[in-house]
């Protein structure tokens, strides 16, 4: 068996735990250092998913909750690839998404924003990547919404994205933003990412070539998960 060990996480591309501009993080951030652990079998394995876990409409947010017709809003396709740090596609991995409706309202018992609930929009979907790591889903463009942080803070339009990869160490939740949104540089949550170059990697460009004429615009969003190290001369980590 080939040895598997993941490239240690570069914490510099991620937000630190404590980011006072995002107030909720203040009481929810560990203050003591994380304990660094070399990978063992518990970390290089992780849950696996198959088509049997999903339904046929799971990646179509325009249809998967429709009751009386299509949801209101700008119809879009989001497509891209899940890759690892070595540039290899991550096959058969689960991508889950959730988002507000076109008015910026979530279908959640705890969301009390007065923009209306859309009776035809659930706001969540999921898809497995193909053999080469490609995925796509269809949805409507989410609206911006206000949130309680500063008195007048607004979230840019965004889609929440959860990805598994092939090992529990690759588990990642992030958010996809939309090219050209003037709220991105004003968002305290986007600003938790210290490096502006890293934040740019969460902004999906408009991709007219993937648009469906007279139907849907398209955005392209690639997601990079941690990659395995090339352990050319090491012993297998599970012991010998």
């Amino acid at each position: 068996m080939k040895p598997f060990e993941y490239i240690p996480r570069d914490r510099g591309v991620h937000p630190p735990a404590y980011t006072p501009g995002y107030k909720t993080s203040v009481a929810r951030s560990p203050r003591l250092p994380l304990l660094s652990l070399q990978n063992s079998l518990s970390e290089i394995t992780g849950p696996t998913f198959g088509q049997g876990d999903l339904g046929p409409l799971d990646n179509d947010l325009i249809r998967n909750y429709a009751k009386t017709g299509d949801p209101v809003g700008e119809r879009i396709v989001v497509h891209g690839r899940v890759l690892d740090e070595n540039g290899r596609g991550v096959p058969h991995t689960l991508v889950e998404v959730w988002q507000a409706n076109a008015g910026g309202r979530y279908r959640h018992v705890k969301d009390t924003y007065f923009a209306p609930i859309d009776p035809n929009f659930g706001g969540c979907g999921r898809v497995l990547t193909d053999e080469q790591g490609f995925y796509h889903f269809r949805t409507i463009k989410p609206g911006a919404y206000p949130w309680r942080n500063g008195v007048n803070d607004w979230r840019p339009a965004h889609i929440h994205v959860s990805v598994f990869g092939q090992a529990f160490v690759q588990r990642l939740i992030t958010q996809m933003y939309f090219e050209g949104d003037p709220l991105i540089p004003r968002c305290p949550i986007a600003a938790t990412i210290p490096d502006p170059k890293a934040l740019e990697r969460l902004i999906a460009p408009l991709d007219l070539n993937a648009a469906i004429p007279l139907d849907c615009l398209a955005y392209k969003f690639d997601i990079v998960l941690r990659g395995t190290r090339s352990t050319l001369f090491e012993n297998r980590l599970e012991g010998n």
Partner: protein
Amino acid sequence: MPQTLDYLKESPSQTAGPYVHIGLAPGAAGFSIFERELGQDIAGPNAEGERIRVEGVVTDGTGAPVKDVLLEVWQADDEGRHPHPRDPRHAEVAEGFRGWGRIIPDFETGLWSFDTVKPGPVMGRHGRLMAPHITFWLVARGINIGLNTRLYFGDEEAANAADPVLGLIEQVHRRRTLIATREDREGRAVYRFDIRLQGEGETVFLDI
């Protein structure tokens, strides 16, 4: 200029936010959309081993329960095998054992619980056995990048004492933060595992 290394950088993490349940556990968000919600059954009906319950509360730096947390767990079966192709013994795992679960607390109290089988010891690095443990991953509003930790079992004293990961925790008293206490309730083992994000008794979180 030397040649460039063409590695990509991992996508930066962003908080799961307050509405994480919509995407990962829509039932908890108050609606039904998927035929099957994922992560509801960790061990399945066929796995051997002791059936246990694990429960706890995640608290923040002020001591308040984190009621909107979402936890995921990953574990081996009772013989220390993972249902994953990289585990040399994965073919022996019982049909239906997923080893993975998603846990949502009660939104009023923050108390969460899940049922599973107690895992067996797992082979660690350099042929050193690791004490039975469950890997945890926590996300919530205000948590910018998912937090990893491990649960160990209070009734595995000898194995815990020899565990190579617990042994790495320099402040010996902090090892306690990873050890769940066992109680027998109506004939079944219930392990209590509280997680403290910050402050007095802060849980040891792992960079895995």
